[in-house]
């Protein structure tokens, strides 16, 4: 059986950042991604990112992705594309189908950086063609340059809904409205203001009631919600749209962690059931680590920091970095992560992470 020091599953910002830190320290890294191109979500993100200079703030996501790829290439990491990891077995054996061929690799350490999956919303008509996830739309528009439709109703006013609305308009579609079940906009006001001043109404306390059409979406019916989230009869409104875009949250893509036997806990602030991990990002199964959206739905900037942290911790546990040097590097990462998990949008996530880590101590 093939052997490897570190196998990373998923070449998004978390996986790539971990690969860079570990390889820099001397670890021999293999990183697998099911796609034809590395970068994860970053290659859909054509907008400028937030953060500080250390997080490349003001740089577009695509360019942050390219910078990570350049670095990975320079250091000489073994990047396997078209490589689906389908199972994790005892003794840290990893099942990979690479370019159609099945192999089993025995790894000293495994990092799961598989990201997240989109949540769906069921309503009458939701199986009609034209009801799509925001992630799929973002891939179509920004990667493949295909417009899914001309008139779009967006469901969800979190940052994803707001940003994808803006990008649909940049691509030439019309966004009829953004509807939000909560009484307030979920994402950053600066993103909301940007689409609002381009003429898109944002309708809070409102939800989708029904999609109408023969074979594909032709109309969307929305309805007001009262303060108990009950539909207000008679408040329906109809829009002529050919696409209904769902941006109603993400959930960690954690099947491989379940399969590996990691213990899970429910942390709603971070997207639901999560593999418990410690301050080094190691799960309850020794040698198996998590980083990025699988360890809590956050942002690319936090995914990068968690990836770096896992990479350093893994290099340390393999004996490539001494404890003192590792500690210093980790301290810097904790500090930068705390900066990101601050303010009204971040402090809840910081507290939730603390709870998650405290639960690992109890194991």
């Amino acid at each position, binding site marked *: 059986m093939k052997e490897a020091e570190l196998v990373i599953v998923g070449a998004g910002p978390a996986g790539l950042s971990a690969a860079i830190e570990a390889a820099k320290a001397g670890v021999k890294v293999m990183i697998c991604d099911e796609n034809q191109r590395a970068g994860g979500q970053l290659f859909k993100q054509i*907008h*400028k*990112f*937030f*953060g*500080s*200079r250390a997080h490349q*703030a*003001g*740089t*577009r996501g695509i360019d942050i992705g390219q910078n990570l790829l350049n670095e990975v290439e320079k250091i000489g990491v073994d990047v396997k594309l078209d490589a689906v990891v389908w199972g994790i077995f005892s003794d840290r054996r990893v099942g990979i189908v690479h370019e159609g061929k099945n192999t089993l690799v025995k790894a000293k350490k495994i990092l799961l950086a598989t990201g997240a999956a989109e949540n769906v919303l069921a309503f009458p008509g939701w199986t009609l063609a034209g009801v799509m996830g925001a992630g799929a739309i973002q891939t179509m528009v920004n990667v493949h340059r295909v417009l899914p439709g*001309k008139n779009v109703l967006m469901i969800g006013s979190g940052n994803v809904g707001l940003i994808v609305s803006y990008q649909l*308009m*940049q691509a030439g579609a019309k966004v009829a409205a953004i509807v939000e079940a909560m*009484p*307030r*906009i979920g994402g*950053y*006001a*600066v*993103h*909301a*203001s*940007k*689409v*609002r*001043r*381009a*003429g*898109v109404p*944002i309708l*809070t306390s409102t939800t989708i009631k029904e999609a109408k059409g023969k074979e594909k979406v032709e109309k969307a019916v929305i309805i007001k919600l009262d303060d108990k989230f009950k539909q207000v009869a008679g408040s329906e409104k109809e829009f002529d749209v050919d696409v209904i875009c769902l941006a109603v949250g993400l959930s960690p893509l954690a099947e491989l962690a379940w399969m590996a036997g990691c213990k899970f806990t429910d942390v709603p602030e971070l997207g639901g059931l999560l593999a418990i991990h410690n301050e080094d990002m190691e799960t309850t199964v020794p040698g198996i680590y998590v980083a990025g959206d699988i360890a809590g739905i956050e942002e690319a*900037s936090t995914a990068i920091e968690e990836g770096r942290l896992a990479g350093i911790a893994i290099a340390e546990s393999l004996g490539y970095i001494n404890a003192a040097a590792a500690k210093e590097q980790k301290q810097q990462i904790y500090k930068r992560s705390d*900066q*990101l*998990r*601050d*303010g*009204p*949008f*971040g402090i809840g996530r910081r507290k939730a992470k603390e709870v998650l880590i405290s639960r690992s101590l109890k194991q």
Partner: protein
Amino acid sequence: MTLIKDGFFDADELKILPGVPSEERLKKGPVVVIECAQQIPCNPCEEACLKGAIEIGESIVNLPKLNADMCSGCGLCVAACPGQAIFVVDMAYSQTEATVQLPYEFLPCPKEGEVVAGLNRAGEKVCDAKVLKVLAPKKFDRTAVIKIAVPKNLGMIVRNIQLKNSDKED
């Protein structure tokens, strides 16, 4: 309240922001207006201003604070803001007109001299606006900064533009 319910500021919400200059300062000539109201982890504006007129400080969730006397209205910070929340307003441009510099990321980009519609924060057309300048150097990384002239009373109202021929409904 309007900001988190509708996505745009009402006049009172705007006035209290530390990034918005006083009325007296606005009267004196070009100055930046930073419409950033939430504590989000972000600070590129601080770094973009070579004159040190924008301060965020150690904690990157602090709101950007403007020292309006140090601001020349040069517009360098406009394209640097990932939230597109920064504008430069010159209320002293002429007897009858004010100018607004705003970030623009749509195609086609308007041309200098073109007349476009001026939109308010809710996206409603409020006037005609003349495009005075279009800046899109490499440094701005594909965000153009458009300078328009609008009726003087609308300098603090107009925050977007719409090209005249993009009106068509299909």
